[in-house]
């Protein structure tokens, strides 16, 4: 063994990143004659194409080929459910729907040419928002429900009851590297496609279908992405297909790099939601019964909306035991871009719903929301079964939350905030501490498998490959650490190589935070196979027992002699020992029945909590996060530096989701926030001045995951719900904490000011009523 696992090693590509040497898809040298593609898209949200004239496009300077649905050799679909054409054929269903594509000699020629198409539309009535979709019963998938007990009866019989509605906006992934695909024709019509993709295996299959080829004819490769966040799970397929069609048509390499505006217009985002609730509770705020109804904006096709909305349902309990509960999920079809995966995958929206309800209960009872949260926490050994019938066996919140409450000085600061607010007329502060419990595994059980491939070379260096993709989350580093650990070598002896469908087949998407859980285990298995072969060889060669052989620090102790790892490998080679191995892993224990939405969809849960303090300006609605304390459980960390980065980065991204990042469509159904000039993700100055982030020191996965670590990609995102509730708390001070503000997300200055003004109106109405009553 050697000291690699658990160490804060830098990202395996860090030096390449800082020098500009790291190659992304657009940086790959282009073969001579490479053409560049651009997409022609719909300008109407819902219309039949009455006529289309592409002659002006064909005649434009530099244009080599123009293709439409009619030019697709195979199946015109990239979707999960057959509802997502590559090129809209007759019917367009959102502004940005691809209709045709162009290949030209330069990027600029291609982009100019697509604007020249003459398209006549026969407009159909569009459905542009959730409310209209619900009214018209417009869904991409049937409504789903999970329930337990008798919520209706429990609500009606409870001491108190609240009903309400809250709206929650979507979010663009805003990976810094936009979508890109680069297809190179090979002999016999085969294709090599470089794709900025979290799921090269799916890109391979979709391209094969579109091209009327077979999987064996298409190789898809991705060394790294400039960020993915779920936005490159299903979405890359479209661009890979377009380049493949054009490359096959022209015989040239074809690259399609989306301009940022196109990227944000054409690719799916986090689903926005409307959440309706009806809850009954007792004097302590303990929930007796609850009905939650989630309606999400899925856009024009199903894409991943099924599992995304399922995950909303699986997280509508967050950390709370709900005895009598009904969770309903409507998957609304709208004439807007088809929404997709984004860090948390529906989980954040589910959690947002229940946290909002808990906050409402606390305001109603005029008690600290943290106390209501604690009152409803899952128990340990009791009150521990989720609405979907999974037992919560690893709950660390009963220790984690009090620890954060202490370290963040929550109670003391609550008093300070009150004192500040009493003195300050125009600026108000707010404080909130919220927990996260997030289920780890793909809910599609068959995705929970992974493969790895390791080669040993005779100089003792290692080539590592696995089905996971690197998008910045540090997966390659962690898997290399695991591999180095097994072989007793340094991480610098290992070369991480591009995800490649020809090396590890049928790999799942790198998603659901599962990357290192799955691929780490697969690589460990492969490395163990190799180590065992080397061990057996050394035992025979040197006539020693297995326990006399130790791999450490690049050397191998064999009985009383030591040799370098390279020497042993070289000797094994000479003795004709196989030096290449695959590894495989599948997650145990999980199962779940889609028809009843019950079972054990998750192998385990990841936990965390955050305490945020904010200030708001009652005159402008501006807000600022002042201090954040986070305690997060990553189990036994494989790499604390990387894990800390995931926690901090996830939190800040979540903060953006709930504050500055607003998706805004004009009345014609066009997304107007499609570039960083109009869509505002957090910048450095938005960081809280005090930002204390800690990993739970006692963290250890109950389940035998890779070195007892826990997944960390998604869970920290939801820590940012504390920011939203701190803002709501600050607004509530305007109602003297007696009335609860209505605040939708994202809490932009406009929404905050609206909430403040509405609360003021209610206060004065109440005041009026009271004085009338007195008369």
């Amino acid at each position: 063994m050697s000291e690699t696992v658990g160490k804060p090693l830098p990202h395996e590509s860090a030096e390449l990143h800082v020098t500009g040497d790291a190659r992304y898809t657009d940086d790959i040298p282009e073969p001579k004659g490479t053409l560049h593609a651009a997409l022609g898209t719909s300008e109407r949200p819902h219309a039949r194409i009455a006529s289309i004239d592409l002659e002006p496009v064909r005649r434009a300077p530099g244009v080599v080929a123009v293709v439409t649905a009619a030019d697709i050799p195979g199946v015109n679909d990239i979707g999960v459910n057959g509802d997502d054409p590559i090129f809209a054929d007759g019917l367009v269903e959102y502004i940005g729907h691809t209709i045709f594509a162009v290949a030209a000699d330069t990027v600029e020629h291609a982009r100019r040419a697509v604007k020249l198409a003459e398209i006549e539309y026969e407009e159909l009535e569009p459905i542009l928002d959730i409310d209209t979709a619900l009214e018209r019963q417009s869904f991409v998938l049937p409504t789903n429900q999970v329930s337990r007990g008798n919520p209706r009866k429990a609500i009606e019989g409870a001491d108190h009851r609240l009903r309400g509605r809250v709206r929650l906006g979507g979010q663009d992934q805003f990976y810094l590297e936009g979508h890109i695909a680069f297809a190179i024709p090979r002999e016999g019509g085969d294709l090599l496609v470089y794709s900025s993709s979290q799921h090269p295996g799916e890109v391979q299959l979709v391209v094969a279908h579109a091209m009327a080829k077979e999987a064996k004819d298409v190789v898809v490769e991705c060394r790294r992405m400039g960020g993915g966040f779920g936005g490159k799970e299903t979405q890359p397929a479209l661009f890979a297909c377009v380049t493949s069609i054009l490359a096959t048509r022209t015989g040239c390499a074809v690259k399609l790099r989306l301009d940022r505006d196109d990227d944000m217009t054409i690719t799916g985002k986090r689903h926005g939601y409307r959440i309706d609730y009806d809850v009954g509770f007792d004097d302590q705020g303990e929930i007796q019964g609850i009905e939650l109804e989630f309606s999400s904006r899925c856009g024009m096709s199903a894409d991943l909306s099924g599992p995304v909305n399922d995950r909303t349902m699986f997280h509508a309990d967050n950390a709370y035991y709900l005895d009598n509960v009904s969770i309903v999920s409507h998957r609304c079809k709208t004439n807007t871009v088809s929404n997709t995966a984004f860090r948390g995958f529906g989980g954040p929206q589910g959690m947002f719903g229940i946290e909002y309800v808990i906050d409402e209960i606390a305001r109603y009872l005029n008690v600290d929301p943290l106390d209501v949260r604690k009152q409803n926490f899952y128990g340990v050994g009791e009150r521990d079964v989720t609405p979907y019938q999974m037992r919560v066996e690893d709950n660390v919140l009963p220790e984690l939350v009090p620890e954060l409450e202490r370290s963040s000085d929550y109670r003391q600061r609550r008093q300070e905030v009150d004192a500040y607010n009493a003195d300050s007329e125009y600026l108000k502060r707010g404080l909130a501490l919220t927990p996260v419990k997030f289920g780890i595994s793909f809910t599609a059980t068959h995705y929970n498998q992974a493969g790895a491939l390791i080669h040993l070379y005779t100089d003792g260096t290692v080539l590592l490959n696995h089905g996971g993709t690197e998008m910045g989350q540090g997966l390659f580093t962690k898997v290399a650490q695991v591999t180095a650990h097994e072989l007793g070598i340094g991480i610098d002896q290992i070369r991480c190589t591009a995800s490649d469908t020809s090396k590890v087949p049928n790999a799942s998407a790198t998603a659901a935070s599962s990357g290192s859980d799955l691929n780490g285990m697969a690589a460990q298995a492969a490395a163990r196979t190799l180590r065992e072969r080397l061990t057996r060889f050394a035992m025979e060669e040197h006539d020693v027992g297995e326990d006399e052989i130790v791999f450490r620090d690049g050397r191998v102790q064999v009985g009383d002699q030591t040799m370098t790892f390279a020497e042993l490998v070289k000797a094994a080679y000479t003795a004709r020992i196989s030096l290449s191995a695959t590894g495989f892993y599948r997650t145990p224990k999980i199962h779940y029945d889609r028809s009843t939405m019950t079972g054990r969809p998750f192998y385990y849960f990841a936990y965390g909590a955050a305490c945020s303090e904010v200030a708001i300006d009652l005159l402008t609605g501006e807000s600022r996060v002042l201090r954040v304390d986070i305690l997060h459980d990553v189990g036994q960390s494989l790499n604390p530096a990387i894990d800390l980065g995931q926690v901090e980065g996830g939190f800040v991204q979540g903060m953006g989701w709930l504050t500055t990042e607003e998706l805004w469509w004009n009345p014609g159904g066009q997304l107007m926030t499609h570039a960083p000039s109009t869509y505002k993700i957090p910048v450095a100055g938005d960081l809280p001045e005090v930002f204390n982030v800690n990993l739970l020191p006692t963290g250890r996965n109950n389940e035998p995951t890779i070195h007892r670590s826990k997944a960390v990609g998604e869970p920290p995102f939801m820590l940012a719900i504390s920011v939203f509730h701190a803002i709501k708390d600050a607004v509530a001070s305007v109602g003297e904490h007696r009335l609860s503000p209505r605040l939708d997300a994202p809490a932009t200055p406009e929404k905050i000011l609206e909430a403040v003004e509405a609360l003021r109106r209610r206060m004065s109405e109440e005041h009026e009523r009271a004085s009338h009553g007195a008369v």
Partner: protein
Amino acid sequence: MIASQERRDRAPDDAIRFVLDGEVHTVRGIDPNTTLLDYLREDLRRTGTKEGCAEGDCGACTVVVAELDGDRPRFRAINSCIKFVPTLDGKELFTVEGLRAENGALHPAQQAMVDCHASQCGFCTPGFVMSLFALFRSESAPSVDRINDVLAGNLCRCTGYRPIVAAAQQMYRQAGETDGDWLHQPFSNGDREISPGETELVARLRGIRRDGTLALTGPSVDGGTHSYFAPTNVADMAALVREHPDAYLLAGGTDIGLWVTKAHRDLDTIIYLGNVPELQQLRVTDTDIEVGAGVTVTDCQDVIAEHFEDLGELFRRFASPPIRNAATLVGNIANGSPIGDSMPALICLGATLRLRAGEKTRELPLEDFYLAYQKTALAEGEFVESVTIPLTPADRHFRTYKISKRFDQDISAVCGAFCLELDGSTCRSVRIAYGGMAAIPQRASQCEAALEGKEWSDATLPDALAALEHDYTPIDDMRASAGYRRMVAHNLLRKFFLETSGYDGETRVVGQRR
């Protein structure tokens, strides 16, 4: 005429010269509309510099340009995605590929980024490295607030920034540990001897300095011709503007750049004013500040801030450092966007423009410059030479507020500016102007009238607020609804009142006046 005669006599020079990797780099026959980012990535295949947006908003494309500042080089980060290649003429360019020492050692900015775990996906990283490199070479010991400001133009979606800010501090500590490469030594307030490396750089820059107009023609995307002129004195410039009334006048290009990268427009003829020394002047007297048309926001913001604290705060939040390093104040004014940040304040302060056509100049109050949406009082062949801001009497109250979704690097939903002179407690003179409330930056004349000659007190405010209602009919868009704009316009006046009438509680959540 004389000037243009002279210009014709000199052979037009058709090559762009700038320094890259320490060597003079000559570019010929290029479309003058080519952006530096495309040139780097496509022509030179230096792919370390990235495109994240092609509109100056993400910082992935950040590079650093060195220019002469007296007899020392000055280093500035800029956005290569909206920088036209010909404007590099006479400068030295640094890209992320050029920062290693000769022995291969990483630059302290790079090493600190590695050591602080400040890259995840790495796509934003070269841009951050270059912003840090510019900081490293131009300031010592920046505070965290200052670092946040410096990084306002660099987006990172992965890290949450904390480690990058840590790297910005760490690089100064790391600097001592590296070898003798002068680029790896931090800036030191000018108290250090100029290093041999800097001396060489200065010599290189002097070596490619140009006296006459740079005149270029190159093929356009669609097979036509584009031309480009960079005059080196104002008379030549005036003559060129006359000769080419349809030419695009290019200053920092932070508006114009987007017309090419986003609107795919052809700029057939460009006249670049960045090399005209007369337009680079920043003059401060007892009575006013005059800012030449070539002066960047970076170069005038501190001077203006000394006199108008709130303008300092506004400029701190105006775009980002790399944009401000290119953008001119006059360009902001001339572009005439209804949401431009500087205009409400400058209108309130009674700024005037000097316009020039040929040899003739005229003065025009800024508020009369805007005629209608995107239409100004500039006549054909005329351009803005400078803007003059009168220095206000000490007893005048001035405030300007920018309201946007994000504090840093965002466009205003509403920008309000207020200027008040009191006689005792009576409003002697009031000037109020808003951006984001109408098709042009515009004074709130009815509101002003409701205040003029009245008591500056709680009692007068309701009338003024009611009058404000009639001054504007704002619109709904992605930045804010009309209702919000209206309410905020009201509340900013209220805030101005609070801040100038003895209220002693806090009134701001951000900024120096927090």
